[in-house]
């Protein structure tokens, strides 16, 4: 399958998905680690794609949503942010609600 299609599938089939370096349990980048921790703190189930084990996605994800860096977090099938934005949303209390709504919308 075409790589853009694979990325699109991951975004469209998961209400909350993070494309990160490493895994939530074993992150390989401080920014990815913090973003994954923020998602874990919401208690909402989320998916992840480890871009370090998928060179094709690593190369092509930046042009998918025109965002040059990792991690990238898609909530409700839309790019919500990189690491700084997710952290900011956790600190101002928005993140949990936004993730919960996305999961609920997905089940509806």
């Amino acid at each position, binding site marked *: 399958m075409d790589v853009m299609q694979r990325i699109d599938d991951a975004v469209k089939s998961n209400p909350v998905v993070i494309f990160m370096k490493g895994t939530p349990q074993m992150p*390989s980048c401080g920014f990815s680690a*913090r973003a994954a921790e923020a998602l874990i703190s919401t208690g909402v189930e989320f998916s992840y794609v480890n871009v*370090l084990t998928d060179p094709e996605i690593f190369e092509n994800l930046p042009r998918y949503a025109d965002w040059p860096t990792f991690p990238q977090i898609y909530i409700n099938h839309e790019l919500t942010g990189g690491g700084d*934005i997710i952290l900011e*949303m956790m600190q101002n209390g928005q993140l949990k609600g936004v993730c919960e709504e996305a999961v609920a919308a997905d089940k509806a």
Partner: protein
Amino acid sequence: MSLQTVIEKKLSDLFSPEYLLVENESHMHNVPAGSEMHFKVQIVTDSFENQTLINRHRAINNALKEELAGPIHALSMHTFTPDEWAKRNGQVQDSPPCQGGGK
């Protein structure tokens, strides 16, 4: 001109910030001394008024497109309007330590 100076100049010219701090955080990472790869930007400007965070970050990504396609490996952004900045007393989050994940 150092990359740090280039970033400062581009952001100053484009956003006329009330406050701008560009820090080279490459020393926090496993790269040679004097490297310019990891940067943190704190920027306070009127032009972020009524802009979502993602749009503010996109505006900076666009301003630094060339640098992000080349030498910049990581760019941490903290974007505020003057009101938001006043409310935070100028406090932003520290960047995390690198965990060695390659580019």
